[in-house]
């Protein structure tokens, strides 16, 4: 037996003295988070994007307040704002006015502004949560498949194929008939949203999964993985601490692109009757309803279209910035 320099017990005793001289206090370096934040703050474009995202989140959160101040109740029909014969808004610009900031919907006369505001809740919720579900699942499965290889890889890859080949629409429509009113402690729309998140999120993961797998395949050959293993790191540790940080960039790129896809996916499902039950507003749902009026009431289409677009743009700008900020190699 040689004598290792310090056994745990020994360092405990040595601590006070050592701490004073070289302990954590003297640490002038910044943590990863701090560095990223510092960089991010310098990136004006990314910060604008981030600010917009925060704004939209606030809008969603404080929807009742905002609508109370600036709009009409979102589900209230205002047929007096419509031409009774045509069902289209009276006045130019789709009925835009101080009371109806973005105008009113054809047919119902509902306030587009407040529906956009309330729609932000569900659309963003679904957009995010579903993206989160697929990103998490995809990352976990992809990383496992890529790292372990062999039969694990084959199994997961084939599983991904199955999911990709799965007739999602069919599944969604079959579900409508069997959806209970309440399950898992959720009711009505909450349950609907949960199911939507599940469907959208759960069936999208193989997409990102395959990409992550590909990246992992090459990462696992890197020497630092071996180095980590030689320290006695288990597979879980290596996956989490060594590989994951290197996958941040692709994950961010895909997540920011998945969000709009998911928001629109909700619209498609709404269209098939598996979406959120009316009259609850969602951006995607509004968009698909607006198609019929794209030339007679363009504001009906533009409002949700722009809402989705701007949110997505903001996310992408922020995501790009974040990716750059997290990349230790980027200089300025």
């Amino acid at each position, binding site marked *: 037996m040689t004598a290792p320099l310090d056994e745990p017990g020994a360092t405990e005793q040595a601590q006070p003295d050592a701490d004073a001289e070289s302990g954590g206090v003297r640490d002038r370096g910044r943590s990863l988070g701090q560095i990223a934040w510092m960089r991010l703050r310098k990136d004006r474009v990314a910060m604008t994007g981030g600010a917009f995202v925060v704004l939209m989140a606030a809008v969603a959160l404080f929807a009742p307040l905002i609508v109370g101040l600036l709009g009409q109740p979102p589900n209230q029909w205002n047929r007096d704002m419509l031409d009774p*014969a*045509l*069902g289209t808004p009276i006045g130019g610009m789709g009925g835009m006015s101080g009371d109806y900031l973005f105008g009113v919907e054809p047919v119902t006369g509902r306030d587009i502004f407040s529906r956009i505001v309330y729609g932000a809740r569900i659309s963003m919720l679904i957009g995010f949560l579903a993206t989160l579900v697929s990103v998490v699942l995809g990352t976990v499965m992809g990383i496992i498949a890529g790292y372990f290889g062999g039969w694990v890889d084959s199994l997961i890859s084939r599983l991904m194929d199955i999911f990709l080949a799965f007739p999602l629409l069919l599944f969604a429509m079959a579900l409508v008939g069997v959806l209970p009113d309440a399950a898992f402690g959720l009711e009505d729309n909450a349950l609907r949203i949960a199911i939507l998140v599940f469907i959208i999120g759960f069936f999208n993961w193989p997409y990102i999964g395959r990409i992550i797998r590909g990246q992992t395949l090459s990462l696992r050959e890197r020497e630092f993985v071996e180095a980590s293993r030689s320290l006695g790191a288990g597979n879980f540790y290596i996956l989490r601490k060594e590989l994951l940080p290197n996958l941040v960039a692709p994950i961010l790129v895909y997540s920011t692109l998945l969000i709009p896809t998911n928001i629109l996916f909700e619209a498609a499902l709404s*269209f*098939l*009757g598996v979406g959120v039950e009316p009259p609850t507003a969602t951006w995607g749902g509004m968009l698909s309803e607006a*198609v019929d009026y794209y030339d007679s009431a363009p504001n009906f289409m533009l409002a949700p279209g722009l809402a989705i677009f701007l949110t997505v743009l903001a996310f992408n700008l922020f995501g790009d910035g974040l990716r750059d900020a997290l990349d230790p190699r980027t200089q300025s």
Partner: protein
Amino acid sequence: GGGGNEDGGSDVSVDDSAISGIVDESTEQGGTLNYAHSDQFDSLDPGNTYYAANWDFTRYFARTLVTYEQKPGEAGLELVPDLATDLGEVSDDGLTWTYTLKEGLKFQDGSDITAEDVKYAIARSNFAPEVLNKGPNYFNTHLDAGGYEGPYEDGNLDNFSGISTPDDRTVEFHLNEPFAEFDYLAAFPQTAPVPADADTGDQYQTQVVSSGPYRFDGEWTPGKQLTLVRNEEYDPETDPLTRNRPDKVQVQWKQEENDRDKRLLNGDLHMDVSGVGVEASARQDILRDDELKANADNPQTGFLLYFALNSNVEPFDDRACREAILYGADKTAMQGAWGGSIAGDIATNMLPPSIPGYKDTDPYGTEGQTGDEAKVDESLEECGMADGFSTNIAYRSDRDKEKKAAEALQQSLKQYGIDTELKGYPAGTYTSEQAGSPAFVEREELGILAYGWGADWPSGYGFLQQIMHGDAIKDAGNANLSELDDPEVNKLLDQAATTDDPTSREEIYADVNALAMDSATFLPYLNQKALLYRPEGLSNVYFSEAYKMYDYSALGLEQN
């Protein structure tokens, strides 16, 4: 007709001249007539279809025993003999209806059309549900056929006792009970003759043997463009109608609606064969353009839109609770949901105005048709739910306008404390599995069910029987969504079937209508109207009251 302008909005009245008269009347022949459909017909087999548009369309190649007069307005409801020399001759006991075929009738291959061919056509279309099951089954219900199993199970047609053919030109129908409106059945495309040796079962739709002015151009594949060319064996002399104007008829299927409308307005297409009218976007285009308006008609479609209230679902077991719904509904909003006055007139009872026996009654009328708070409160009080209650509204989730109407109902009820939740189901299974399954309705507590109904033939019986008769309630595929099983109503409808005199039948229908309204299980809200467009270049365009769309058989093309 005439679109209403009374509500103060834009002027949405359109030309409408094809409703009352014939536009561009002409005898010219020639040209290719182009139809399009946003979907496709259930089948082109005249014996296997239940679409009014298809019934209208099959007249190009499938002549029936009798048919509707080629005239605009009321006159178009008149039945005239087609293959038969006369309308049906009924025996004194009312159990035998006899038709005699004209002479010189030929199939496209030149062979003679015989009574046997008509008998065979009915045998296959009504008695072989394992093969052909898309059409109505009135003959099956009314004919006294014993245990006949259909021509595919039982190769010997003589075993089919429901119809006898004493000679080549006589067709005798033997009924199990008298049925006064049998001539209407004889106008069904199911009576179009089918030569037994040319029948290919469910494949017959690919090569229907024509008895009319046009025949299929080769074999047709479902979903692919259909081309009809002239049938050289057709003799116009035998035909009471003129239905051979164009040289060629073509149909494109599955055309996207908005796109189809645009092409229609552009003149790229001649007609939307589904006959349901243009969609919202084109509707706006037409109503904003006087030139387009001049080519548009806005007729009633004979289709009634309503919500059925199911009395097996609480609290609708209490009539007063049902009443609260009827008084609370804002019908103008529901009308708006379908597109305003152009989409239909507000309905106040369960018969469409074009059905004989219609009376302008409004038992639950409210001011401006927007609901009556006092009466709702009163009803709620009466049913012991003064604070309101909650229930579900079922609708077809892939039908936008129905969804909007359900939303409108939801909105108008909300102010009275009646909370409703919308339950959308796919249209494809709505009747077979959800709204049409009493067990499902009860379990899911679907108190209010959106629906729409049109008559199989222009009579009260044809309209009311399926949706109100207690016997019509089925475990699956039920159309009587209210599950109304009123002995009085049942009795009256049965009685109507055996009443010869049309005026007394009308009386009965009016009574049935009144009883149904009294039951408070129906919330009718719209007598649907369609906005039809007839592009320049068509001739002989008029609206057929029988099919509730342009009479396709009469259409011609203006020659340069």
